[in-house]
């Protein structure tokens, strides 16, 4: 078997996982109980690894907030000392099958959505979306109000959601995507239809909760049109866990930004990151006084949904997001066509009516991205350097991390580097 044949065979296996997996939201549990490798002093952060001295302001604030929330420190200064001394361990969430959107971090007691792939058995995790309040840990803020919200999520909302989802027998995420196909969600940055569909399935099972805060929980679920993003991230993580066990594959299995660097993972080399400078997300600003100089580079794990073909890969599915971010329908079509040109397959369960009922492309192949020099475009919310959301838009995936990934997998397979450089 030639190396090309080995890679092609591995990619076929990965594509089988990507297209046949069945991610189901099964539970909500404290992170320490379910996330592999989680300890009482671990804080999971978005993006590829970064020396703690280089952590951006919002992530640093969120990490310190999480350590205070866990009772490990009383002040931000004490918390930061724990980080610098190594007594608290800051690790990339995706290395633990967890996806943290924007500036969100996860610590031991925080409730996380548990998703299980019922076909291949992988498990994935993500914290619960905090709702429409912009002052939250997810956007790099921490004070008494944020702490009060974290406590409520830990003691009420998380356990309540877990009980409801278990009572429902789990929520099949593919069914949600199928039922809402053609409703305008691109399912990374826009998901009102999917969130409503999800609420339809979960809220009936919340009615029987004995928690005195039941009505507040139902309200929290019902008002959040972005809720579906986080169960979907957990769902994708449950799939990438199985993908990362298949050697020699050049298919994308993870990607994220930490505000400084942007990184990708290939199925064939598991949790190894290939990084380069993070691009800035360009589109629209939430406040007209903001400028590009106010923004961090790409930040967050939510683009792991794009590994599954959502977001920018299926831009054609979400015309309203294009409009909102100052773009148009022909650009949406172009984004999806670019992704198709470098993907190995297409999902069939959520066809887009105005795209000749085609599904969204899936299985980005690093060989095709580099070889054809076609760079897929990812959607995303932009983060402000000082904390908070700056806007939303899109960014071209940087070529250099795909080149680095090809160097990595070539070395893995052949045992040596290519000569030219």
């Amino acid at each position: 078997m030639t190396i090309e044949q080995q890679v092609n065979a591995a990619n076929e296996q990965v594509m089988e996982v990507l297209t046949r997996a069945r991610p189901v939201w099964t539970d909500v549990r404290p992170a320490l109980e379910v996330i592999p490798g989680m300890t009482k002093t671990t804080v999971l952060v978005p993006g590829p690894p970064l020396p703690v001295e280089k952590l951006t302001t919002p992530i640093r604030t969120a990490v310190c907030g999480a350590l205070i929330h866990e009772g490990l420190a009383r002040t931000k200064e004490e918390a930061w000392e724990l980080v610098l001394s190594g007594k608290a361990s800051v690790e990339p969430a995706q290395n633990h099958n967890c996806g943290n959107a924007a500036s969100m971090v996860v610590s031991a007691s925080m409730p996380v959505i548990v998703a299980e792939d019922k076909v291949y058995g992988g498990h994935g995790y993500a914290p619960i979306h905090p709702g429409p309040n912009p002052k939250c840990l997810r956007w790099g803020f921490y004070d008494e109000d944020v702490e009060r919200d974290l406590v409520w999520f830990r003691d009420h909302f998380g356990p309540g959601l877990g009980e409801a989802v278990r009572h429902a027998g789990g929520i099949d995420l593919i069914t949600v995507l199928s039922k809402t196909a053609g409703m305008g969600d691109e399912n990374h940055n826009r998901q009102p239809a999917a969130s409503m569909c999800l609420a339809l399935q979960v809220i009936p099972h919340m009615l029987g909760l004995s928690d005195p805060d039941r009505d507040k929980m139902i309200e929290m679920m019902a008002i959040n049109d972005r809720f579906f993003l986080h169960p979907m991230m957990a769902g994708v993580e449950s799939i990438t866990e199985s993908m990362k066990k298949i050697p020699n594959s050049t298919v994308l299995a993870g990607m994220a930004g930490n505000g400084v660097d942007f990184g990708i993972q290939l199925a064939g080399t598991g949790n190894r990151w290939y990084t380069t400078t993070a691009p800035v997300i360009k589109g629209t600003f939430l406040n007209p006084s903001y400028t590009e100089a106010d923004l961090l580079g790409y930040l967050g794990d939510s683009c792991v949904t794009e590994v599954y073909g959502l977001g920018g890969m299926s831009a054609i599915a979400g015309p309203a997001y294009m409009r909102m971010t100052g773009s148009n329908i022909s650009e949406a079509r172009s984004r999806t066509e670019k992704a198709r040109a470098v993907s190995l397959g297409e999902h069939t369960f959520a066809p887009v009516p105005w795209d000749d009922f085609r599904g969204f492309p899936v299985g980005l192949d690093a060989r095709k991205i580099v070889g054809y020099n076609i760079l897929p475009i990812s959607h995303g919310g932009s983060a402000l350097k000082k904390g908070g959301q700056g806007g939303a838009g899109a960014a071209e995936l940087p070529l250099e991390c795909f080149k680095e990934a090809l160097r990595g997998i070539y070395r893995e397979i052949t045992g040596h580097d290519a000569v030219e450089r």
Partner: protein
Amino acid sequence: MNCDNILKLFQSELVVVNVGPKLFAEALEKQGYKTLQVEWKPVAGGDREMQEILEVLGGLD
């Protein structure tokens, strides 16, 4: 040797096949010539190291 076909070719309308950058085709079109554009880019944008890697890993049509 029968040169009729070659002579016919030179007497027929000129259609230029342009491979790669479209700039050359556009220059000819401005002078009234017909062109046929072939979209072609060197593998990996001409990056020799990547070409060497892709020669082994394959995956391009």
